């Protein structure tokens, strides 16, 4: 599956649009960017199964829809199960000759972090174990943004949310972010990747690989949220870039057991560059920032050891 990437520059991005403007996502929301690029990769022979969440409520308020491909929403916690049903139906209908057996249909599950890390984890685990050919795309904005910025299993340590406020006793979230992509990988899922919308060709190549995978695939995309992370709407992509440059976020893939970091970082920046852009971290003390830096340093060390060379470089600023 390695070799030259399919999408290398912006000129490789298809012109066709299957995700229409006019939706109700916040100005500066990067989820729209992800959905738009996802459909450019997937094309028209695609069924999207969407969990309840920001993308779902903002794009399908009856009688309007942003989706120019068949789209299904059932509930919050069951996207992987509903997608399993869609995929199984297509297999059965093809076997019975009710549907043309030569038709190729991509089935994509699209869910946020709440619908994946927390309430949807059981259905996701079942879908992975059963081996359905579904690409599960997680857009991770690190809290329950649709309901008003409540803490999720994905919220990083120290982050302010409305249910992990900063007071005399609490200083934001007190627990670590759940390693969801590793949990998915541990199922033996043939293709698992992490990406973010700043590295859009990396993200699109991963969508493409995911869709080409026989069996389940999982693409975990960081999705900076202007409303919940508290930054000016124009900075979403820049924060996404800083996430990679600080190694707060590492773009990797596990392609049929072959692990590689797809966006290398020769000179790593201090986490404060990422944190100081966001209101949710504005209460952090110097000591807490250093704690985060220490944990990132450890993560980088582990990744470099896993890859066998320095893919994420030393801290330089």
């Amino acid at each position, binding site marked *: 599956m390695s070799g030259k990437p399919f999408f290398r520059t912006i000129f490789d991005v298809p012109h066709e649009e299957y995700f229409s403007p006019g939706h109700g996502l916040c100005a500066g929301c990067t989820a729209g960017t992800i959905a738009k690029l996802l459909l450019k990769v997937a094309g*028209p*022979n*695609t*069924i999207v*199964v969407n969990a309840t969440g920001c993308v*779902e*409520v903002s794009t*399908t*308020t*009856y*009688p309007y*829809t942003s*989706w*120019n*491909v*068949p*789209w*299904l*929403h*059932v*509930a919050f*916690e*069951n996207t*992987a*199960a*509903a*997608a*399993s*049903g*869609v995929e*199984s*139906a*297509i*297999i*059965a*209908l093809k*076997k*019975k000759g*009710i*549907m043309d057996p030569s*038709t190729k*249909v991509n089935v994509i599950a699209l869910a946020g972090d709440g619908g994946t890390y927390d309430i949807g984890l*059981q*259905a996701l*685990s*079942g879908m992975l*174990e*059963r081996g359905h050919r579904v690409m599960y795309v997680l857009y991770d904005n690190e809290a329950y943004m649709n309901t008003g910025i409540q803490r999720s299993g994905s919220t990083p340590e120290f982050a302010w949310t409305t249910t992990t406020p900063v007071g005399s006793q609490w200083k934001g979230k007190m627990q670590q972010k759940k390693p969801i992509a590793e949990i998915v990988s541990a199922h033996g899922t043939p293709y698992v990747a992490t990406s973010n919308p700043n590295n859009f060709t990396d993200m699109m190549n991963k969508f493409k690989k995911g869709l080409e995978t026989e069996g389940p695939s999982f693409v975990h995309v960081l999705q900076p949220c202007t409303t919940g992370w508290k930054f000016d709407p124009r900075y979403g992509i820049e924060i996404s870039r800083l996430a990679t440059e600080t190694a707060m976020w590492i773009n990797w893939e596990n392609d049929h057991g072959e692990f590689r970091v797809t966006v290398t970082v020769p000179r790593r920046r201090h986490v404060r560059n990422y944190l100081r852009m966001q209101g949710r971290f504005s209460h952090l003390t110097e000591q807490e920032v250093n704690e985060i830096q220490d944990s990132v340093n450890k993560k980088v060390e582990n990744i470099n050891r896993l890859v066998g060379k320095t893919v994420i470089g030393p801290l330089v600023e």
Partner: protein
Amino acid sequence: METIAKSIWKRLPLSSNYAVAYAARDSDVDEIAAYPITPQTTVVEKLSEFIANGELLAEMVHVESEHSAMSASIGASAAGARAFTATSSQGLELMHELLHIASGMRLPIVMSVAARALSAPLSIWGDYSDVMNTRDTSWITIIASSAQEVYDSIVQAYRIAESVMLPVMVAYDGFMMSHTYEPVFVSEKAGLFRDYIPRKGRVVLDTKKPVTMGAVANPDWYYETKYQQVKAMSDAYGLSVEADQTFSKLYGRGYGLVEEYNVDNSELVILTYGGIFGTVKQAVDEMREQGIPVGAARVRLFRPFPLNELRSLLLKSKAVAVLDRSFSNGLPVSGPLAVELKSMMNSYNINVPVYSYIVGLGQRTVTEADISKIASQALSSKVSNESIYWGVRE
């Protein structure tokens, strides 16, 4: 009947669970998503055998919960498959959220329910607490009283569901029916029901004609969408009659929506649902032999509520004792069928004494002697206005 039986049927000893499996096979279902729960399990075991042996071409989704069973059924049905699932008790409760979504999205899913008590305390035994909890989910609900009727009702359910675009559940007694064997006529060869339940075009997730399914409805649209479901449920009434009559004409077996037994010239009608009707009929026979003027009836279609048939029954009844195997706690009359019957009678200005009895909860045995005693008490008219919890140790 006999000539029909010879030509197209095979007579097998089947439990109601196996009757369900044969009916799903003979309905040519495409997708089955189910999770094991007692006493439903043998439905899915048998269907797995059918698929494993090549007797049924369908996809089995071995989901990790009943919540996912209904979710996968919704996904499959939305994608155009004939979807089937089966459950009981806690499983039906775990599905509850999705029951509303399946009907709200107007998907013709069919589900069998081997009716079972609800925890706590944990009970694997039969009653109708699980089914009665789904009364507000907009599912068409059939309650059968024999394995043959279970088989026939599953097939009829697809005809009704795919005509009116509402899901249908077919319920029957956990254990008393799910695990007891009766002679059942099943289709001798595949395709018997092909014209009775034809493959019809409907709106599905089709890449050539993209649609958005499961959209958000704000206050300007939610109400109208729900009202369409109300109209569909109303249409389901006539379609249920049609499905049963056509089935009877083609295959020689029909049940009606309310089954009556020795109702004429009775002073009391014992009204119930499910497998207990057999015991009730036996008790009626015994009482009739003793000259006690008692009749019986059972509700086969619970949703939509069979108004016309029940009105006609009530016109012939001097008093009604309703036996419910479920209760809605906090009401003076707590038997679900009794409550709904009284509500209907009030709407149509029908005045017949209705006595509510709660029986057989958690499969507490109900014998012909119990039915006779209930009848004697009801005939004496010395009956409380409130539900009587028959035989309970206080």
